């Protein structure tokens, strides 16, 4: 039986339904995650289901007690999620766009991430922070960041980046069940992409990379939406007789170092494709991993394919220039690929 296909958005929604059914301690908090909070009219309640409709329908199934619309006060309600997690709940809180982290970072990184350590392991904080990332919608500099590198920088957090509908479902389930704080990064450009997703319980282990495509010539580590762009590039390169191995880490904290290192040991070449800002980023992190732990295998300079060191511009023309595309990956791969003849 071929697996049914659903969208990334539907996969997220399905994970919520299943996890909320499974565990009454799972609650959701965020701005307009249901919509029209406090209204008696059932047609109005659930007016949005989140700004991109990811949580649509949940309030009808689980009620307003478990679908808590919040005022615009991210520090308070994300901090409340952390406090509730430390008090035995399993909250999933939405930060609408990752660029808004500047108004609430403290509650995530100084409270959520550090409580357990500061308390000598005598607390746990099973909170999931969902947020949206990525350029491509003309949303300009404050609504298009990725910034997962920053969260990865902080010890105490786990960071997951689903690139496919199946991983969107499986990693969300894993994040919710995890006893540590997990930041779950949804790429807003992926919401409408479709793919096969198991119907029943589906959990993707945190810390396990996925070899999206096997290959022999160059290891291409691609993150989030860049996995799809790398697949495009792979097809183009295939025609040139170049075979790339695409590794999707899926979780970046913890990082599945072994899978990346094994791949590089095989291909002896590394290109990292990352939509986040280039400095002190996952791109540099992965390259440093290889340069310190598999240096002897590396047979050409590593390459980063990232946006330039600029904020995200608005104009479609500029944004297109900004976001890495298949051509740039092709170029980077061609530059390091062993000459075949």
């Amino acid at each position: 039986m071929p697996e049914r296909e659903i969208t990334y958005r539907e996969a997220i929604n399905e994970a919520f339904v299943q996890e909320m059914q499974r565990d009454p301690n799972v609650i959701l908090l965020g701005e307009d995650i249901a919509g029209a909070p406090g209204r008696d009219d059932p047609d109005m309640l659930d007016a949005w289901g989140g700004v991109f409709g990811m949580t649509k329908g949940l309030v009808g199934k689980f009620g307003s007690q478990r679908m808590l619309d919040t005022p615009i006060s991210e520090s308070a309600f994300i901090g409340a999620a952390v406090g509730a997690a430390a008090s035995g709940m399993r909250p999933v809180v939405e930060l609408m766009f990752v660029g808004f982290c500047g108004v609430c970072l403290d509650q995530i990184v100084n409270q959520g991430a550090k409580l357990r350590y500061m308390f000598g392991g005598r607390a746990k904080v099973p909170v999931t922070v969902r947020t949206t990332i990525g350029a491509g919608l003309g949303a300009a500099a404050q609504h298009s960041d990725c910034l997962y590198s920053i969260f990865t920088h902080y010890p105490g957090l786990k960071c997951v980046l689903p690139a496919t509908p199946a991983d969107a479902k499986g990693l969300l389930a894993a994040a919710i069940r995890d006893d540590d704080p997990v930041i779950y990064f949804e790429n807003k450009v992926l919401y409408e992409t479709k793919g096969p997703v198991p119907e029943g319980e589906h959990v993707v282990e945190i810390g396990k990379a996925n070899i999206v495509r096997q290959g022999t010539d160059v290891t291409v580590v691609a993150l989030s939406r860049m996995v799809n762009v790398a697949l495009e590039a792979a097809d183009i390169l295939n025609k040139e007789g170049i075979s790339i191995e695409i590794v999707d880490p899926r979780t970046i904290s913890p990082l599945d170092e072994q899978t990346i290192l094994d791949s590089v040991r095989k291909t002896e070449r590394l290109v990292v494709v990352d939509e986040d800002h280039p400095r002190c980023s996952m791109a540099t992190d992965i390259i440093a991993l290889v340069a310190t732990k598999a240096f002897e295998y590396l047979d050409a300079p590593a390459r980063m394919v990232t946006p330039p060191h600029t904020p995200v511009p608005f104009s479609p023309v500029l944004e297109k220039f900004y976001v890495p595309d298949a051509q740039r990956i092709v170029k980077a791969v061609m530059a390091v690929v062993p000459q075949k003849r």
Partner: protein
Amino acid sequence: MPIKKDRLKWIYERMCLIRKFEDHVHDEFAAGAIAGFVHLYAGEEAIAVGTMANLRDDDSITSTHRGHGHCIAKGVDINAMLAEIYGKATGACKGKGGSMHIADMTKGMLGANGIVGAGPPLACGAALAAKLRGTDQVTACFFGDGASNQGTFHESLNLASIWDLPIVFVAENNVYAETTSTDYSMRVPNIADRAVAYGIPGVVVDGMDVFAVYDAAAEAVARARKGKGPTLLEGKTYRYYGHFEGDTILYRTKQEEQSYKDRDPILQFHKRVLEEGLLSEDQLAKIDQQTDTTLKKAKIFAAASPFPEPQECLEDVYVKYP
């Protein structure tokens, strides 16, 4: 004090221009000609215009994601605004900012802003600069009902209060923050009730009535200009369109919408100036025509403008970087 005739004309002109501009952007978005997140100001014109009618060119404002109205009222060139919204090279920000970030420092317009509640701290800074330099410039800080629950609101009102900063905090209470009504998001009837926490005046006005806004703003601006510190001024208003373009607006009723449209700020103004003989039909009609022309020119300008060169992406990050 009665408003001078020229000011009245200006008020009508700006309100019409905002309305027409927003209606046009709405249509263009629906037609797929505009990308990104676009938040329209139609319905709220009286607040921006009534406030700005009391400001000088060298006064400053901070704005929100719903910034077109503030820009137009503060005198930002609408050609450059419209071009910006399309992402053209001739835009107010060379196409880099888009609808959510239109700015014009030469007009004291310190930028629309995509972060809810980000304006009040910046406004404190503009006002502090004026105060330290001993000028009598005033800063008006616009923000929504939703923003008044954000921590920056509290911090900034407190800072402005203890430093007697020349600011008018203008709360645009349009009943909703996205889908969330003020009934749900706060337990006090008025945002202005929060002024008590900072020992500053809090004033509520009908934000659909530009005369009411004008009068209250006049007092608040005068107070600020005299160095007597900030005021929290709240206008009760409504946005006619959805939260952003594309919003299905399932969270409010048609009756509610109509009840505000019945008190439309432009119609109200129109009616009152005629009734009181402040302006004539002819004068109003002429302004109507002029604003049509202004907008038409802006459309032509924006349409004819080129997109930026892709490499423009790399410029303007720093004044100087190796």
